[in-house]
């Protein structure tokens, strides 16, 4: 069971309550909520906010692929996964991503939660522009997506 969404921050905020409602089930004995939030320091610079950009269609496609491959790679069949990522300007402390996971057992839940965030970092076309106290801003250097061979 999968829920994915890109949240335009101008329209609404990411909600933990919705994540909780989605993964809540007596089928599962373990649940984990991972949130990413905007912090006030990066690379010795004082951050006041981050603008998130995304290629929405590719991001949602990558979320689905990551979810589907966990069945074989992690051998976790029965699970609920809720992934929402924000788009737009976020202030310090605001949530940029929620990954809510529910599985039968805790070892599966920890494994799955970590796998999903690490794969998103590697594969989902999302970018951050940090804004600093000195009114400067910078796009953060990321990891290139691997080009296909043909």
């Amino acid at each position, binding site marked *: 069971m999968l829920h994915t969404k890109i949240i335009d921050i101008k329209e609404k905020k990411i909600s933990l309550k919705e994540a909780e409602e989605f993964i809540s089930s007596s089928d599962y004995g373990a649940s984990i909520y991972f949130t990413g939030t905007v912090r006030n320091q990066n690379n010795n610079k004082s951050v006041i906010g981050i603008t998130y950009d995304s*290629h929405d*269609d590719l991001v949602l496609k990558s979320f689905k692929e990551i979810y589907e491959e966990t069945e074989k790679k992690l051998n976790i069949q029965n699970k609920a996964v809720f992934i929402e990522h924000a788009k737009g300007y976020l202030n310090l402390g605001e949530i940029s*991503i929620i990954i809510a996971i529910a599985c039968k057992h805790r070892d599966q839940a920890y494994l799955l939660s970590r796998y999903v965030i690490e794969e998103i970092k590697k594969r989902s076309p*999302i970018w951050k522009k940090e804004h600093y106290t000195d009114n400067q801003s910078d796009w953060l250097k990321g990891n290139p997506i691997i080009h296909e061979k043909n």
Partner: protein
Amino acid sequence: MKVKIELFGASREFSKNNLIEFNVSNNIKIKDIREEMMKYLDQNFSGNENYKKIVKSSAFCSQDNKIVSDNYKITENEKIGIIPPIGGG
């Protein structure tokens, strides 16, 4: 033919419109678009080396949302996305 390049991430700095349009010959490939973008940066940003690095390290995606190789042939009026190195979450 016309090709539109939709800009994302750091490449959004290349144009206020978040889009660059090129008039190119038929049977153009992604590798040719990279060269067109380099020329565009020479003309509009005095060959800004940081911007050129972005183009060199970027992937591209087709209109049907597939990451495509440098040999991908672009069709007329196709909207291509430039995908700079990523780092969200």
